[in-house]
């Protein structure tokens, strides 16, 4: 069958099961748009390409399949880059398609030309510049295969315009030939047995469940493994929702803004079993002081993650689900962990998450999260942006179902939540989706409000407005002697409720705790997208906190709830870290 490049590409996308594309057209990509509308594929018209990549990313994370975004040459392509890197850092399978100037003009600084494949090399799992129409089908096949297989990640395809117009024979390949790409799925039995012996003998073990558990769809296997071994489970930020938080073995999440008792448990563990996590710096604190008493087992599909940041005693390369399926039956009688659970319970009693009375004079973000939790019965899909509100959302919302929490973990991209929530909602129209954004983050991609209306996406938006780049302000307060530099957003911030209304989206504003429930209920009752602005206490801080470069044992616990005390800046020297927890076995 002789087809032109646009037809080949459209057919190939169809073969790959693509139902939704996020993008925006332009001069060079027009042949593709012209062809695509002949196919039953949904296309959402974004207002900025960065958002297209985030939407594809959010879509991919909950659909557990490839998300597709596209843009035209030059600025269209470069606008995608942040979203592509975000997907790369968080192992999200997206395929980004851009169309470049015609081959004959490549390299001439033609109008809207960018060396986009040169630019995307370090931010993709693989990228392609398509030279001939005859290569197109194979490349699309490979791109989707690579994005999906092994550790997922973004793949970029750049196609000169003439390649879309030229013809070639079309046969969609059924297999790929990639001798250099052979992910290891099965963990080595030798290593698995070694891990099993360590697990049986451990007295203070902790499981770290990372996003790999979600990617591998291994929540049930994780649960079985934890129950059989009776080991507490902590999550990484991106691993949140991989383990039901109502479960007795759930042990919170440690790290920079995680729970004190979780951080202590990792710090004092004698065995750490990392599952589909990458021991990142926000999680581990100071690497050299990470879990100093523990043997470390690390299960991950990407061998390059093993031993990258922390020493590993038993490396197991493989798909989390398959490894757990082999590992759990290998484990015999385990030591009792009763003393360990008692110790953890004691830390938990001693360092609870701060709770707020209902009648505080100011509004606090945890109250907002708690109210959303109550209204949604803990069943909403939460997409958090980046900053204090992100940490509060992660701390206070009780996730039960795999995929319920999405955020930009690796890159920390402000502006992620609204577009990603659109992707999540498109992937899961049956779910209630909340984007939770700070006033700073929201202003980084608020143009996508248009998509909510145009494409009928009923995302609910919570804008947590403190009039500051809150997280930066917190650092300036704690570590830069309260010298607030360029963090005040109060002047210049639009009226978010009016802004929503300008897009024909209803909005509500909440300024005190007593208004929370009514506004949230109203937003939920509205059948389409809705926005609620929460004007919170301006100088609210997120605790617990492991200062950057400190060890988990140096976590600064919550300050008790006293508004006046919070209002006074904490003196330059950070409060003395509490004494490291007493060793469990003297």
């Amino acid at each position: 069958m002789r087809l032109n490049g646009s037809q080949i590409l459209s057919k190939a996308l169809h073969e790959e099961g693509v139902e939704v594309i996020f993008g925006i057209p332009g001069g060079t990509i027009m042949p593709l748009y012209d062809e695509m509308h002949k196919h039953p594929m949904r296309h959402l018209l974004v207002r900025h390409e960065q958002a297209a990549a985030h939407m594809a990313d959010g879509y991919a994370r909950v659909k557990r399949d490839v998300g597709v975004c596209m843009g035209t040459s030059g600025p269209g392509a470069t606008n995608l880059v942040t979203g592509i890197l975000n997907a790369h850092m968080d192992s999200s399978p997206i395929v980004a398609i851009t169309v470049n100037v015609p081959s004959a003009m490549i390299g001439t600084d033609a109008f809207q030309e960018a060396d986009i494949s040169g630019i995307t090399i370090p931010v993709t799992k693989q990228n392609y510049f398509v030279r001939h129409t005859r290569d197109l089908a194979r490349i699309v096949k490979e791109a989707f295969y690579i994005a999906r297989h092994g550790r997922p990640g973004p793949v970029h395809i750049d196609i000169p315009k003439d390649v879309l117009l030229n013809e070639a024979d079309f046969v969609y390949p059924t297999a790929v030939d990639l001798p250099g790409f052979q992910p290891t799925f099965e963990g080595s039995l030798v290593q698995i047995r070694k891990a099993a012996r360590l697990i049986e003998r451990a007295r203070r073990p902790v499981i770290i469940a990372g996003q790999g558990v979600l990617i591998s769809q291994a929540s049930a296997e994780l649960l079985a493994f934890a129950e059989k071994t009776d080991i507490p489970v902590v999550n990484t930020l991106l691993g949140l929702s991989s383990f039901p938080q109502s479960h007795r073995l759930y042990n919170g999440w440690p790290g920079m803004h995680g729970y004190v008792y979780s951080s202590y448990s990792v710090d004092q563990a004698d065995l750490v079993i990392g599952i589909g996590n990458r021991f990142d710096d926000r999680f581990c604190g100071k690497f050299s002081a990470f879990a100093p008493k523990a043997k470390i087992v690390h299960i991950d599909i990407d061998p390059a993650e093993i031993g990258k940041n922390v020493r590993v005693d038993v490396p197991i390369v493989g798909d989390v689900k398959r490894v757990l399926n082999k590992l759990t039956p290998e484990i015999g009688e385990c030591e009792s962990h009763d003393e360990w659970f008692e110790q953890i319970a004691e830390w938990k009693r001693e360092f609870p998450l701060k709770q707020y009375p209902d009648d505080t004079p100011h509004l606090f973000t945890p109250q907002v999260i708690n109210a959303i939790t109550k209204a949604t019965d803990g069943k909403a899909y939460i997409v958090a942006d980046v900053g204090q509100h992100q940490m509060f959302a992660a701390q206070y919302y009780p996730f039960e179902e795999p995929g319920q929490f999405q955020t930009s973990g690796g890159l920390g991209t402000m502006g992620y939540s609204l577009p990603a929530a659109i992707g999540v909602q498109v992937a899961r129209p049956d779910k209630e989706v909340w984007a939770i954004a700070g006033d700073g983050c929201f202003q980084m991609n608020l143009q996508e409000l248009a998509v909510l209306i145009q494409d009928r996406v009923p995302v609910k938006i919570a804008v947590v407005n403190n009039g500051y780049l809150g997280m930066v302000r917190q650092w300036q307060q704690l570590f830069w002697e309260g010298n607030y530099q360029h963090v005040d957003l109060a002047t210049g911030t639009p009226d978010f409720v009016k802004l929503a209304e300008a897009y024909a989206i209803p909005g509500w504003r909440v300024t005190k705790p007593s208004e929370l429930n009514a506004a949230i209920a109203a937003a939920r009752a509205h059948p389409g997208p809705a926005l609620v602005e929460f004007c919170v206490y301006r100088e609210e801080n997120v605790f617990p906190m492991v200062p950057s470069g400190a060890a988990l044992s140096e976590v600064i616990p919550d300050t008790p709830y006293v508004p006046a005390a919070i209002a006074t800046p904490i003196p330059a020297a950070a409060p003395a870290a509490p004494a490291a927890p007493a060793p469990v076995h003297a």
Partner: protein
Amino acid sequence: MKHTLVATMADGPAVLNRVVSLFRQRGFAIDSLTIGKTHEQHVMRLTMVVDGSKTAVEQVIKQLYKVIEVRKVSDLTEDQTVERELALVKVTSKSTTLRTEILQMVDVYRGRVVDISTNSLTVEVTGPTDKIDSMISMLRPYGIKEMVRTGLVAMARGVMAGQEKGREALRLREVS
């Protein structure tokens, strides 16, 4: 410690770019890097000398495997290898006495004079890196006008590179 790594990879316009980008991105220090064709069609071979700890070099290897085109990476450091580098050195030689002296020295290193002009000599030498280093240090006092080195290429003796060290063995370092 210096490690000699050898990687075979499918050829393609962006492969070298990708490998170099990876080194730059991760801040790996490279002493030399050479790439060229092999006996197999569309397969390129890269030899690189990296300086670093065992763990750092292991990371280099693991990261290299992330490049989709890379098929096999071997660390030849502890193997019996044939290693060669080529250097062209242009030395000042204004008088006949000096010229004779230089020629004698070059002979010791089995170098060859490949060009002579009124006041310079160009010498070609191949061999392991340390031999070339040594010849260059001997020539330096005469005045080196220009010099170029290709960087090291290496091959395991007898068996093929990495034949006995499968991919898995490289990936799964058992520490215990």
